[in-house]
């Protein structure tokens, strides 16, 4: 992969993140509907919100890093400097 495909990479990450978020909504609703003794719905949605936050943060951070080349010194230089 090269820097040329950075936009495609970010688009892919965003699409996958969106798929996870949408899939999560269906999953939580399915669990609440079909479980014999489901946890409280607020707990399920709170869990979903935490997961969604992590997914959105991860996608945003990776997208920023990929699009904002170069990001900091090369790893080898930075590691040597430490």
């Amino acid at each position, binding site marked *: 992969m090269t820097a040329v495909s950075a936009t495609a990479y970010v688009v892919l990450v965003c699409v996958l993140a969106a798929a996870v978020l949408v899939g999560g909504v269906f999953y939580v609703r399915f669990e609440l509907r079909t479980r014999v003794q489901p946890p409280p719905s607020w707990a399920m949605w709170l869990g979903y919100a935490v997961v969604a936050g992590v997914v959105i943060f991860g996608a945003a*951070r990776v997208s920023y890093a990929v699009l904002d080349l170069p990001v900091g010194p090369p*790893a080898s230089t*930075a590691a040597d400097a430490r």
Partner: protein
Amino acid sequence: MSAAQDASGIAVRVFDWVGLAARLFLGYTFITAGLDKLPHESTTQEAVFGYQLLPGSWLHAYAATLPAVELVLGIALVLGIFTRSVAVLLALGLCSFLMGISSAWQRGLSIDCGCFGGAGSTTNPHYLEHIFRDSGYLALAVLLIVLRHTAVAASTYLFGRRS
């Protein structure tokens, strides 16, 4: 009991044992990863630093927390405690690892993934191999989320419910 119910019961039992195999494999993998990293916090910090994704002030906390979390989640999986919740957390972690590895590849970094210890730059990074491997782990985690229970789970005995 009808033949269809018999077949359904057998399928459920087969999936229970498949779930157990997935639990043990994934649990063992994460216990190994946690144990490899736990005594070498500075190496883990260097590995995380190599990805150039987290701010420097986060490195210490992340490097100190990650191995312990991997260890605890791995043990929980092997024992079969809160299997589905643990699988959700592992799936999230694996997604973050996949994004880290693939973004490092995309940015042209040449770093050791640091998944099982190790860190720093390398002349021969195995990004594709790591992506396939972590995708396999992710598939197992998703399987554990989808399966509602697995065989020989401690939750069954501790809380009287199948996990």
